[in-house]
């Protein structure tokens, strides 16, 4: 790509972002993004592997160019004094940062209806949610406004919206990508991931942002991910199908799409084997102890003193803390802080938090048992249903939480996982999920390349 082509890419992206405005997926004003994209295109590294490629960022990833709000009133207009390592790596590779994408407040949610800046619409059907919490990133990619976007995962927040919007979403192994400059939610779970219009787009962005970072001691001392070649066949791959991910009440359309994908994997030469992950049903209750517990601690820093907005006319320091947080956090964030504080309080610590950590160990053992028996990858549906209607689950938090029942196990155990489109049901996208072994993202991506070529992600199942 030449500088002229990079400028053309910047202009075309700005126009596409303008057209996607009605989705409410982008928090940065389009005029600001246009100006920034043009300036970036002039200064981008021409030798970079992503030269001229626009990439939007979920707005809990710190940037110098744009405010970082986390979808919260508390951080309205907050300007970070530094940028995330992933942003520096993208720029060094010549990518153009295409603004900040809307999200559930502080990445807490499964529908992107919990943003202080309004809900995001699904580009496939605007009456439905795009999934969450990286719903803005997924909607921008799904609408064709950008070829790739960064999202973040704590319980499935890249893969679930990828499935709902008909795009590819990759959550790498815990420790594969630096989290320096990511606003923390659940530190033992959080990981930055990528959404892309194709496996290749998502994988090449992941390859750029992966690798060691001395500024994040949870980031493994490893080289960046090397992209696998696109395979013709999947001979030699053993793919496990866990029965717990195919319950009797699984949406019939989702089941049909998965069955078709499994047939395609067999046709490609993979050996498909039934496996069991017996503690899967306990992943969501485990997640909803550990994630709120960590969130209640991480979000203690937002007290009106150090970051963002603060309450006015306060009389004491305690009053400042309480009223800033009470007015600044939305209902879902408040609920999770309260649940997190509750499960960590002295009367309940053993009953909930300690028990959840033990369950987490059993979930990790489930995966080890399967992989130790020669299985390379696990294939499942990404979500039990297609995108649901806006407002359908906001009244009952537990029904909303269950949207992540097939994605949360990978976060609790740190293994890599990805979603790719495997068909449609009544016009709505269905995602198929590969779960891989720690730091073997290349195997997962190789199988996804082959499956993507073998079946149409937009065909009715």
């Amino acid at each position, binding site marked *: 790509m030449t500088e002229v082509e990079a400028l053309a890419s910047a202009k075309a992206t700005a126009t596409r972002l303008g057209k996607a405005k009605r989705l409410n997926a982008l928090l940065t004003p389009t005029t600001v993004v246009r100006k920034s994209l043009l300036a970036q295109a002039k200064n981008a590294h021409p030798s970079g592997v992503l030269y001229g490629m626009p990439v939007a960022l979920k707005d809990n990833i710190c940037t110098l160019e744009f405010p970082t709000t986390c979808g919260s009133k508390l951080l309205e207009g907050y300007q970070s004094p530094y940028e995330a390592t992933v942003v520096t790596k993208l720029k060094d590779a010549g990518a153009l940062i295409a603004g900040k994408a809307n999200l559930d407040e502080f990445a807490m949610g499964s529908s992107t209806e919990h943003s202080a800046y309004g809900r995001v619409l699904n580009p496939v059907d605007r009456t439905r949610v795009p999934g969450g919490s990286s719903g803005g990133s997924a909607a921008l990619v799904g609408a064709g406004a950008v070829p790739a976007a960064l999202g973040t995962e704590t319980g499935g927040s890249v893969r679930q919206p990828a499935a709902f919007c008909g795009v590819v979403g990759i959550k790498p192994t815990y420790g594969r990508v630096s989290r320096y400059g990511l606003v923390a939610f659940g530190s033992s779970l959080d990981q930055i991931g990528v959404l892309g219009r194709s496996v290749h787009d998502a994988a090449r962005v992941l390859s750029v942002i992966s690798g060691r970072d001395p500024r994040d001691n949870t980031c493994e001392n490893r080289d960046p991910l090397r992209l696998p070649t696109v395979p013709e066949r999947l001979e030699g791959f053993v793919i496990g199908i866990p029965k717990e991910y195919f319950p009797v009440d699984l949406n019939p359309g989702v089941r049909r799409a998965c069955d078709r994908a499994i047939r395609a994997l067999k046709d490609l030469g993979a050996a498909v084997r039934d496996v069991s992950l017996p*503690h899967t049903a*306990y992943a969501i209750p485990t997640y909803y102890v550990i994630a709120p517990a960590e969130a209640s601690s991480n979000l203690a820093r937002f007290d009106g003193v150090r970051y963002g907005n603060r309450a006015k006319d306060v009389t004491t320091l305690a009053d400042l803390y309480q009223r800033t947080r009470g007015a600044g956090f939305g209902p879902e964030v*408040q609920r999770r802080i309260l649940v997190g504080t*509750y499960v960590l309080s*002295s009367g309940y610590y053993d009953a*909930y938090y300690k028990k959840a950590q033990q*369950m987490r160990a059993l979930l990790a053992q489930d995966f080890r048992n399967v992989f130790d028996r020669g299985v390379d990858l696990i294939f499942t549906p990404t979500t039990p249903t297609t995108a649901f209607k806006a407002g359908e689950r906001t009244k009952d938090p537990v029904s909303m939480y269950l949207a992540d029942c097939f994605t949360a196990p990978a976060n609790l155990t740190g293994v890599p996982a990805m979603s790719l489109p495997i068909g449609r049901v009544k016009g709505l996208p269905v995602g198929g999920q590969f779960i891989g072994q720690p730091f073997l993202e290349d195997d997962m991506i190789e199988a996804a390349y082959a499956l993507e070529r073998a079946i149409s992600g937009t065909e009715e199942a």
Partner: protein
Amino acid sequence: MSVTPEEVRQIARLAELSVDEEHLDDLAAQMSRIVDYIAQLSQVSGGEHAKPFIPGPDLIRLRADVVAPQPLEGKLSDFAPAFREGFFLVPKLGAFEGAEEDEE
């Protein structure tokens, strides 16, 4: 309800979060729904001896349910090159107009 409005008030105080009195009943109902759901973990046996996937309960330092400053890992005086009588000594950053005259 497994969580009472009074417990919500107490938890909100620990979380340093102001909560409207009129929303206490709703919050108690929502928290009860969530707590009842996660309580299913207590019915599962096993795992007591399983090694946690990441640093877990064994490494966590417990403290009482009170709002109080967190104890520092090191001494306060280690945070700056010079510390005297409870104050950090730092280089003079600037002077107000007329300060020199006042000093004289």
